[in-house]
């Protein structure tokens, strides 16, 4: 392929694949924990980190790692303090992060906010080989955390109280997940951009769960979708000279639409999934093949009616 003859393109492609693997893997746990906005919060804070790097002429990617890790820890501590005020605290970090980023960049010698744009929406040509090493190292760390702590993180995200009553180090695991999310944000920053980072943590997961029944398979399918979006978006961006970030996110969204369509196709052709699956499976096993009129109301809403009807 001719586009691979460009060094920067090869680097960008590798960064995109790493991001496509790491972001949905972490994202599945984040979505499970109903923290879909965590990535956005960290992304905004990371902007201040980038600006700090520009101001001090150090590598923006390293300063972004440091600042976003601190931001993630702050967000997690505020979250665990209690529900009330948690979203306000997140909002404070959002706006503080953006304002701090722009202000610090203005202060930088010859700094104009245009240099932030490539961090906000991603840029293919800006991935240096040193950046690539950092990105690759972070991506390996992220995937290693998921592989080693996945079992514990699953229970943590499933039910925090049960996790605690199982003896899991709940506070450590919560911080670990937040820090891993922060590293993922930095991995994705160069390619997809800070404002759209979160999309790659959430949208491939939302698409995957249209088609899957289990958590593990959701992680796997989401990672496949993540790589497809990242590589596809990068290629489209290169072909048309577009920002890669928006192209990647639009492809991820297109995959989501396709997955939703695929799911309804499966439903109309085959068994329609709904509550009370097991009972129906047994009923079918006895040979009864009734047309299905079951409601799709969730178990919670039906439990009373179901209980009293017996």
């Amino acid at each position, binding site marked *: 392929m001719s586009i691979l003859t460009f060094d920067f393109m090869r680097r960008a492609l590798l960064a995109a694949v790493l991001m496509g693997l790491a972001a949905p893997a972490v994202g*599945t746990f984040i*979505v*499970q*924990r*109903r923290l879909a906005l965590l990535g956005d919060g960290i992304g905004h804070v990371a902007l201040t980190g980038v600006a700090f790097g520009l101001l001090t002429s150090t590598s923006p990617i390293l300063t972004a790692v440091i600042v976003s890790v601190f931001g993630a820890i702050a967000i997690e501590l505020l979250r665990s303090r209690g529900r009330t005020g948690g979203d306000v605290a997140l909002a404070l970090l959002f706006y503080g992060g953006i304002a701090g980023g722009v202000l610090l960049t203005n202060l930088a010698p010859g700094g104009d906010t245009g240099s932030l744009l490539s961090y906000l929406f991603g840029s293919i040509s800006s991935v240096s080989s040193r950046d690539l090493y950092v990105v690759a190292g972070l991506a390996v760390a992220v995937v290693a955390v998921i592989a*080693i*702590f996945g*079992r*514990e993180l*699953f*229970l943590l*995200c*499933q*039910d925090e*109280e*049960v*996790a*605690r*009553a*199982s*003896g*899991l180090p709940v506070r450590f695991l919560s911080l670990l997940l937040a820090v891993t999310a922060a590293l993922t944000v930095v991995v994705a920053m160069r390619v997809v951009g800070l404002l759209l980072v979160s999309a790659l943590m959430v949208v491939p*997961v939302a698409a995957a*769960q249209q088609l*899957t*029944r*289990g*958590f*593990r398979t*959701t992680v796997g399918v989401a990672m496949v979708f993540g790589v497809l979006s990242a590589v596809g978006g990068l290629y489209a961006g290169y072909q048309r000279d577009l920002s890669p970030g928006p192209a990647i996110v639009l492809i991820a969204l297109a995959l989501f639409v396709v997955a939703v369509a695929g799911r309804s196709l499966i439903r109309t052709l085959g068994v329609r*999934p*709904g*509550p*009370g*699956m*097991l*009972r129906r*499976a047994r009923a079918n096993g006895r040979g009864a093949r009734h047309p299905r009129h079951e409601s799709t109301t*969730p*178990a*919670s809403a*039906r*439990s*009373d009616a*179901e*209980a*009293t009807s*017996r």
Partner: protein
Amino acid sequence: MTPRKPPVFAMTGGEARLDGRLVLRGVDLRVPAGEVLAVLGANGSGKSTLVRALLGLIPLSGGRTEIYGVPAARFRDWRRIGYVPQRLTVGGGVPATVREIVSSGRVARQSRLRPASRADRAAVDRALAAVGLAGHGHHSAHQLSGGEHQRVLIARALAGEPDAFVMDEPTSGVDAASQAALAGTLRALIGQGRTVVLVAHELGTLEPLITRCIVLDDGRVAHDGAPPKPVGEHALPGHDHVHPHGPAVPDGGPLGTWDRT
């Protein structure tokens, strides 16, 4: 039972506040090993708060509580405890299979870097079979009915093979088949000498299994002793134990209601 063994749970003067409001008002409770304790009481009387405090999930604002003789905050031997929380749905937005959820009950027994062992898988199989879900591990937990879902949560606790179980309203809103499955599971556990703390709105078919009963009223223990005997009108033929027993358990529908805590 040797007298030297510490009780499974021991709370003295337990007080707990939620959002500043006193929800437990001086609870004294010892649960010796092998006991099958029912915790009854109206909605909002503090049953869930009590069991969460017993497990150290809520810090006490007064008094103290111990698990196997160790203050709850310092207790580490969690593989001995199985907790079935009061939940409407499996948490979170991502699908998970029945087997994945039940397997997560083994986590206290597993080491980080080792994959699930044969013993782990066997324990999960036994737990699924015990609640009548053998062969259904591959189903998505999001597609379960209320009763099936409750059985999955019980199986998760069973999979860890603990000595003591804390179950918060496992029978509420559960269909007859699941009720029967739960009664069978409990009978087996009691036969093995496990300790069970069972929060319930009413006991129903579980009543013969209970060895002791406390009734909470507004955060206080209003009754502590023998389970309510089926006497008087309760002994009349045709009475089928579908309403709450005793005057201290005022409300609740035929099978109780789910309340979110």
